[in-house]
C-alpha cells in the first residue's frame, strides 16, 4: 500500500494582489521507505508543498486536494486537528535548523517540554534518545547545554534526532544541507538514509535544489516548476534519461567536477520562472522551453507509465505523442 498519496493538492498564498498559486494541483504518491527528492528552482513551490503537509498556516491557504497518509486522510486544512499528527505522524526538519532551538532553554528542558505536550515523559524515551544520539555521534552532554553552545553541525543533528524521535511516518527535510559545509552535508545526507534504513521514519521527502545530493540519496525525484509537477521518476532514470525538457535542461545545467568554465561554458536555462500570481495558460514552462509548440497552450496531461514498481510521471505534450 502507498504510504502517502497526495491528490490534486492546491495551496495558495494570500496576498493583497491576489492568490499566488505556489502549489497548483500536485498529485503524487510514495511507497513505504521511499526517499523522494523534491527539486526545483527557488520559488517553484517545493518548500510550500513540503511545509503544507506539516503546518499549513496563513498566509498559506488550503484550496483543494486530498492527502492520505497510510490510507487515512490527513486534515492539513485544519490547523488544530493537525497538531496531534505533527511530530508523531508527520514531522519536519526545518530549513532553519540552526536557529530552530530556543536559545534560552537547555536542550533537555526543551525536549522535556515538547514531549510532555505529547503526553510522553522524558525518562520514558531517554534510552531511545541516547541510542540515537550515539548514532549521530552527539555526546550526551549536549542535553545539558544551551543551543548557543552547540556548533552548527551539532544543532543540525540535534534537530534531526528531535524531529524523528517519535518515529513519524513521513519526514519532510527542508533544505537540510543548504547551510552546511560539504563534509557536514554528506554526513547529514547519510544520516537521512540511515534513519530510513533503521525505520525511524516511514518515508522522507527531501526538499532541495541540489540535484547531485538527491542523486546520492533519493530513490525517486520529483521535479517541480512554477507550482506544478513536471516530472517524477526513479532517480537513476530521471537523471540519466530525463523526458521533460525542463528536467533535461536542469540536469544539463549541473556543474561537473573537472569541467572549467573557461573551456566549457556552464549551461543555464534562459529566462526566468513565470509569476505565480497569474501563471500562463497551458504548460507553465512553455515560455522558456526550447521545444515548445502550439499544443503547449493547452494544459499538458500527466502521462503515467508503470515499469514494475516504478511509476514515471511526466507532464508534457511531447511525452503524450511518444506513447500515442
Amino acid at each position, binding site marked *: 500500500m502507498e504510504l502517502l498519496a497526495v491528490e490534486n493538492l492546491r495551496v495558495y498564498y494570500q496576498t493583497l494582489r491576489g492568490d499566488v498559486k505556489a502549489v497548483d494541483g500536485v498529485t503524487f504518491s510514495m511507497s513505504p521507505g521511499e526517499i523522494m527528492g523534491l527539486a526545483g528552482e527557488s520559488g517553484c513551490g517545493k518548500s510550500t508543498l513540503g511545509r503544507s503537509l506539516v503546518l499549513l*498556516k496563513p498566509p498559506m491557504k488550503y484550496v483543494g486536494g486530498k492527502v492520505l497518509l497510510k490510507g487515512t486522510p490527513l486534515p492539513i486544512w485544519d490547523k488544530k486537528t493537525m497538531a496531534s499528527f*505533527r511530530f508523531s505522524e508527520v*514531522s519536519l526538519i526545518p530549513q532553519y535548523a540552526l536557529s530552530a532551538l*530556543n536559545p*534560552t532553554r537547555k536542550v533537555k528542558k526543551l525536549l522535556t517540554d515538547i514531549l510532555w505536550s505529547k503526553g510522553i515523559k522524558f525518562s520514558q524515551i531517554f534510552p531511545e534518545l541516547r541510542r540515537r544520539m550515539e548514532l549521530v555521534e552527539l555526546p550526551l552532554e549536549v542535553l545539558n547545554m544551551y543551543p548557543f553552545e552547540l556548533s552548527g553541525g551539532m544543532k543540525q543533528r540535534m*534537530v534531526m534526532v528531535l524531529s524523528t524521535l517519535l518515529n513519524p511516518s513521513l519526514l519532510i527535510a527542508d533544505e537540510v544541507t543548504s547551510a552546511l559545509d560539504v563534509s557536514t552535508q554528506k554526513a547529514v545526507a547519510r544520516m537521512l538514509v540511515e534513519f530510513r534504513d533503521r525505520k525511524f521514519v516511514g518515508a522522507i521527502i527531501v526538499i532541495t535544489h541540489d540535484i547531485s545530493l538527491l542523486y546520492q540519496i533519493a530513490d525517486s525525484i520529483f521535479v517541480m516548476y512554477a507550482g506544478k509537477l513536471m516530472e517524477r521518476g526513479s532517480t537513476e532514470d530521471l537523471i540519466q534519461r530525463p523526458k521533460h525538457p525542463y528536467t533535461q535542461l536542469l540536469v544539463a545545467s549541473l556543474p561537473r567536477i573537472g569541467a572549467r568554465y573557461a573551456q566549457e561554458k556552464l549551461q543555464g536555462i534562459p529566462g526566468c520562472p513565470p509569476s505565480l500570481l497569474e501563471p500562463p495558460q497551458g504548460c507553465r514552462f512553455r515560455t522558456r522551453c526550447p521545444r515548445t509548440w502550439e499544443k503547449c497552450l493547452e494544459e499538458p496531461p500527466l502521462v503515467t507509465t508503470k515499469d514494475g514498481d516504478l511509476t514515471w510521471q511526466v507532464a508534457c505534450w511531447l511525452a503524450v505523442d511518444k506513447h500515442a
Partner: protein
Amino acid sequence: MWRYLGRKFTIYVLTFFLAVTIDWVIPRFMPGNPVQTMLSRAALRAEAVEVMRGYYLKAFGLDVPIWQQYLNFWKAVFRGDLGISVYLFPKPVMKVIAEAIPYTLAILVPAILLSWLAGNKFGAFAARRKWLDSTLLPLGYFLTATPYMWLGILLAWGFGVALGWFPIAGGYSFAMTPHFSWKFVLDLLWHWFLPFASLFLVMFGGWAIGMRNMIIYELEADYAQYLESLGAPRRLIRNYAFHNALLPQITGLALQMGTIAAGAVVTETVFSYPGIGSLIVQAIQNQDYFLIQGCFLFIIIGVLLANFLVDIAYLIVDPRTRRGMLGET
C-alpha cells in the same frame, strides 16, 4: 563572573563620580547666589547685610576658592554630610531628604515594579488576540505618549475635583499629624493613590506596547515556528516567547530609570506630594545649592543602584550572558 561584576562596578564608580561632579557644578552656574536670596528675604540695613553676608558665606563654606569648595564637598559627602539647607535654614540637608524620601520611594518603587509586571503580562496576553490587540494598541500608545504631569492633572481633576473621591494635594491630610495608626496609614494611602496611578498608567502603556511588539517578533522566530510544526501547544510556545521577550524589557527597565525620576518630579509637583521631586523644585527656586546637590545625589544613587540590580537580574535570566561571563573568565 567576578571579573564581570568588578568591571561593572568600576563603571558605576566612574559614573557616580562624574554625575556627582556635574551635580555639584550645575547649581553654581545659576545666576545669583543663595546667600543673596536669604539676605534679600531678611530685608536688613546695608551695614547689617555685610555682616550677615560674611557670616553666611562662612557658614555655607562659600568663602573659600571654588576648587577648595569642591574638595570640601567630596570630603563631606564621604562623611555623610550634605551641608545645611539654605531654604530651610538651619535644617541639615540630610534630614530634609530623609523626611522626603519615603514618599518618593512609596510612589516610585510600586509604580515602576507593578507597571513593569502588569504591562508585560498584559502586553503578552494581548499580542495576537484580535480584540484586545486592536483596543490595547491605541490605548497603550496614548498612555505612553502622555506626559506624566498632564495625566496627573487629568486624574486630579477627574477623581479629585469632579468626583471628589481622592484628595488632590499633600502626602496626608493637613488636619493630621504624622503618627502610627490605622487611620493615618489609610489617610496616607488615600493621598498616595493618584500620584501613584498617574505614574503607573503612563509606564504601564509603554511596557504593554513594548511587550506586545516583542512577543509578536518572538512568535515569528524560527524556534517558535519549529515548535509549532512539532505540534507543541500554543501555551508552551507563548511561554517560551514570553521568557525571551522579557530580556529586552529588562534592559528597557534600566534605561527607563532616569526618565522615571524626572517623571516623579513633575508628578509630585502636580499633587504637591512631599517627596524628593517637590523638594527639588523648591530647592531650585530658592537656589539652595546644598539641597539641590543632595536631592540629585539620591537620584544618582537610586538610578545607579537600580541599574546594578538590573545587570544582576540579566545575569540570572539570560543564560547567554551568564555562560559568556562564566565561560571566558
